[in-house]
């Protein structure tokens, strides 16, 4: 009986991981045999990136139960920290170790910023927490946009004004150019790496959820006062979940940065719009349901691209689909209707009969 229990959660984890492996093998084969259009090929890494974002945000929103609207900010930190490192080390390190180190740096930088932001912020609740995380996301984006870093024979120069005020020597090279960001990041990521990172993200999050710490985190979500009363350290586990979630978003940022040669923080990639889009994946996929939020991320990233032929109408259709899906998923009337006609119910009845 006891064995069964661990086995049950493990089985579900294996299924999720299996889906990733199968999807990877199929897509990789299709890509190699040239069936995939270059458009879809170009989407493979972003798909994994957004899936990682969705899974990691689900840790905060679904498992910890706190609404965060600044998840893209952590992605931004991971992207810039790692891209900066990779640009600096472009000549001195081979691609493999360079990307590995960049990955570590990106994750740690994002996790650290998650930790530091989490200390004050996690005292707030609900909508207040939401607006403060949104504010932090915007601040991060804003700060990155005014950051200038250059390097010459004397070392690094920093400024928050412009390139001139870096005061570099003749040989100086601008590494981070304010709103123009970082150019010349080596394209170190590819679909295989992206799939591996998604795989790792799932292992981390799913194993965390099905462990003692995950239980503590969910206990806090379900009833903070009761969790305190059984001796669970609230601050510690909130920070743990928030930092891991931020670190994983940082990892997605590393992937993102190393898939493009130019990295600039704009409203559409690291602004609150992106945070909200990731939140849409999480909520549509089922709050707290890691596997489905990953799938939702993939489908909803693909959807606008597949609708590309409809051009101007595609985002309009996307928004209508979104509203209709929310109404269908959550409105009490739709729920009744679904329960009445659901496939599961028919199957459920059958299964129950067979068991009896």
């Amino acid at each position: 009986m006891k064995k069964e229990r661990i086995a049950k959660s493990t089985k579900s984890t294996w299924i999720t991981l299996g889906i990733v492996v199968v999807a990877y093998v199929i897509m990789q084969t299709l890509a190699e045999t040239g069936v995939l259009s270059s458009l879809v090929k170009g989407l493979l890494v972003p798909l994994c990136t957004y899936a990682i974002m969705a899974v990691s945000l689900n840790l905060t929103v679904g498992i910890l139960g706190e609404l965060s609207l600044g998840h893209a900010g952590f992605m931004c930190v991971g992207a810039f920290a790692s891209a900066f490192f990779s640009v600096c080390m472009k000549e001195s390190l081979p691609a493999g170790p360079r990307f590995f180190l960049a990955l570590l740096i990106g994750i740690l930088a994002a996790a650290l910023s998650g930790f530091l932001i989490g200390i004050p912020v996690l005292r707030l609740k609900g909508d207040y927490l939401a607006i403060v995380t949104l504010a932090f996301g915007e601040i991060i984006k804003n700060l990155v946009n005014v950051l200038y870093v250059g390097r010459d024979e004397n070392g690094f120069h920093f400024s928050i004004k412009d390139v001139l005020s870096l005061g570099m020597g003749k040989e100086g090279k601008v590494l981070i150019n304010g709103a123009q960001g970082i150019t010349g990041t080596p394209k170190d990521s590819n679909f295989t790496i992206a799939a591996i990172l998604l795989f790792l993200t799932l292992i981390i999050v799913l194993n965390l959820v099905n462990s003692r710490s995950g239980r503590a985190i969910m206990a806090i979500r379900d009833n903070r006062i009761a969790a305190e009363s059984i001796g669970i350290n609230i601050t510690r586990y909130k920070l743990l979940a928030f930092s891991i979630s931020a670190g994983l978003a940082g990892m997605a940022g590393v992937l993102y940065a190393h898939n493009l040669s130019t990295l600039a923080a704009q409203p559409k990639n690291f602004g609150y719009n992106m945070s909200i889009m990731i939140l849409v994946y999480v909520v549509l996929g089922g709050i707290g349901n890691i596997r489905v939020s990953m799938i939702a991320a993939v489908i909803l990233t693909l959807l606008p691209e597949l609708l590309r032929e409809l051009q101007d109408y595609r985002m309009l259709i996307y928004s209508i689909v979104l509203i209709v899906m929310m109404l269908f998923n959550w409105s009490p009337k739709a729920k009744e209707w679904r329960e009445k006609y659901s496939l599961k119910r028919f199957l459920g009845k059958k299964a129950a009969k067979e068991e009896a």
Partner: protein
Amino acid sequence: MALLEVKNLGISFGGLRAVDSFEINIEKGQLYGLIGPNGAGKTTVFNLLTGVYKPSDGKVTLDGKNITGARTTQINQAGIARTFQNIRLFKELTVLENVKAGLHNNHPYSTVEGILRLPRFFKVEKEMDQKALELLKVFDLDKEADYLASNLPYGKQRKLEIARALATDPKLLLLDEPAAGMNPNETRELMDTIRFVRDKFEMTILLIEHDMKLVSGICEELTVLNFGQVLAQGKTQDVLNDPQVIKAYLGE
């Protein structure tokens, strides 16, 4: 020395003195009742003892250790566990997981061991499952172990809360109206369970209850609270026959 010693405990909310110079001594293994009319400040006493509120004055000593003004988490680790008047379960967790959450501090392994599924994860999780099922069996909840806590009927939810509190291996267990909403049969059953818990785990129990049958049936000593102050204290039968107590309950 008594297990729980409370001296001159008090708290004010704004101008209102909700609890004033509250004193109590509970010996190890005792089954102690805290009674009083609605609004007398009984739950406030529980909240003061468990650190939900910080006392304005007074001193609380548990097993010789001063825990006055400590945080809820620390107080639980020091050895006080409780249940709540308005049930507070982890609704989205299963019955078993609720109890396992209670085992959190006594069966540790690190987050990294959990994520990497190192051998200790399997060992400790197995221990936890065994321990949790044992506890659930005491409360006749083992068959529902894999139900979501929110799907349990009301009476069983109350029992699950007690099981979860016991999982933290406390020295003192505080029960806030454990029989609220139960029918006479369930209440009788609950009385047996509480006695059983006291005997089996050598537990000290302080409970708030309005059901006088339960109180007079299992409590050895009572404290009566009225308007935030101790009205009477002593052996159950003496207290219940005290004219002052009768007056407080029945009115003039």
